[in-house]
């Protein structure tokens, strides 16, 4: 008896990726419906700003439920969540994303030149085993080249930061 309870518990937590995404979209659609209702749905004769968002939310929730139900009836296997990152170098992806997020936060404070130099040097570092001076040189060349193309040539107003450049 305890064994069977354990296996049903396992079945519950071993939801596959489609079920997980279905639940996620269901939550999003409910949120959209609530927001649409807040701004006013109206009716077909006089549609409010929330009319189409509301009905889109309803449709998304209906499709999410279909996705969850059809996948609950399917056999589990390859599509389990734990198989998603199997044999993948996902650590690099996380590292790149963390760097990008830090870069986005520091860009307005440090300015384009310093922040981008840091980002590019680190990204070239992640890319492969290279000597430090090559990474620094690659970072410098990239920053200067993009600065000339975008700031000087295309006149894009790049962030200056607290140091003024």
């Amino acid at each position: 008896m305890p064994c069977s309870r354990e296996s049903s518990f396992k079945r519950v937590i071993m939801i596959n990726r489609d079920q997980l995404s279905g639940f996620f979209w269901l939550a999003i659609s409910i949120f959209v419906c609530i927001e649409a209702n807040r701004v006013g749905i109206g009716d077909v004769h006089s549609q409010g700003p929330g009319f189409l968002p509301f009905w889109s939310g309803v449709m998304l929730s209906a499709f999410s439920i279909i996705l969850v139900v059809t996948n609950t009836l399917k056999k589990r296997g390859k599509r389990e969540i734990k198989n998603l990152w199997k044999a993948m170098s996902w650590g690099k992806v996380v590292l790149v994303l963390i760097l990008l997020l830090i870069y986005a936060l520091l860009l307005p404070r440090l300015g384009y030149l310093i922040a981008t130099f840091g980002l590019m040097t680190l990204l070239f570092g992640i890319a492969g085993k290279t000597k430090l001076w090559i990474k620094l040189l690659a970072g410098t060349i990239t920053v200067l080249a993009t600065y000339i193309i975008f700031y000087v040539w295309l006149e894009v107003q790049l962030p200056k930061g607290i140091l003024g450049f």
Partner: protein
Amino acid sequence: MIIFDNLFYGFSVALQPEHILVCFLGVLLGTLIGVLPGIGPLGAIAILLPATFRMSPVSAIIMLAGIYYGAMYGGSITSILVNIPGEAATVVTCLDGHEMAKQGRAGPALGIAAFGSFIAGTLGIVGLMVFAAPLAEFALKFGPPEYFGVIFLGMTLLMYLSRGSLLKGVMMAVLGLIISFVGLDPIEGSTRLTFNLLQLWDGIGIVPLAMGLFGIAEILINIEESAPHEVLKTKIKNIFPNLSDWMKSKGAILRGSILGFFLGILPGGGAIISSFASYGLEKRISKEPEKFGRGAIEGVAGPESANNSATAGAFVPLFTLGIPSNVVMALLFGALTIHGMRPGPFLMTNHPDLFWGVVSSMYIGNIMLLILNVPLIPLWVQVLKIPYKILFPLILLFCIIGAYSIRSSIFDVHLTIIFGIVGYLFRKFDYEAAPLVLAFVLGPLFESNLRQSLTLSKGSFSIFFTRPISAVSIIVAIVLLVIGFMPYFTKAREKFEGK
């Protein structure tokens, strides 16, 4: 004869030095991104869109269009020599193209791909000229219900023809619509889905969305699957196909050109579907179908022609109806609106320089591509050897600068990164971003035409079924959705009854 007058005027626009330069830049970049696996025309157009803001609208569209059709040429080189499609529309070229290369016939495979692309591209442009004017005239009769019907059909076709699950395709389209509703309501002006963020009052921009979903997501996937690309070590000779190759390929090129053009016009169609359809057709009508997949030159000539003429076909609904038929056209639609142009039936009359200039530039671009692709193939082979570890930091930086440069907004950079993460997770969870982006671009048109139609009919949905064009469009779309969803319900019922 008016068509020749217009074409002559178009050449007078396209042959201006600035336009020749941007056309060359476009086809060069297109070939480059086509050659490099890991970034397609969509990502490249998204990245380069902000760089066109300082150009005139004509220059911008000439360049972006050049990237699109140039990528079709370049993609075949990677498919043939590396057996990895440089571009999604050249997936099918791997089958016979790489086999030919392994048999020491890389030259004729590359040659027929380039010549076939040139012939089909040119025929496609002729088709664009012939069909665009009558269709634009016809589109003048369109009211809100007709527009709504055609948009609905276009979105349905894209969902229907997209890879993977139809259910997920529909969900992505609905999500795209929801994202397009963020910002101010077009009629009342009140805010919706803005989370009280001032930056969202103007809505979400196409560039952060597309750049994140296609640019950054693509890079993250490539970093993860960092398998080295092996370029086939073979001597490339006889790039000019011999008489026997030409005899085998001529029918495939012609059929591919016609099929590709019409599939390109269809909403939801495009270069990818055209290339697969052409391969299927060639195999079906061939006297030796068993040779397909073993190095049949028709298996390269047909799809390569089809994907090129499809790019010309895809411009027809964009320029005449103002409706993008695929996601690359959706980005060009975005580019036109950013440049203050309204694609639609009046584009040809209000901006003849844009329409005829772009059409004529395509002739010039195709000639440039033939020159770039035939004698310069060894150069592109060298480009193929650039390691991805050098490319990806640069592409990431271009994405970030591109997103920032539109409104000088750090918020857009944040959005791009968020959409990058979302796009990466979409790939992981097998969701396709294309229906989302198309629905996002069409969202404002979808909403305004639906609401105008309902206002006209005093709230009755019968207005969509009393007008022939909207009725046919909506009925076809509903039939497609019902056919597509049928298996879900039958399987679910069988499972349930089985239990």
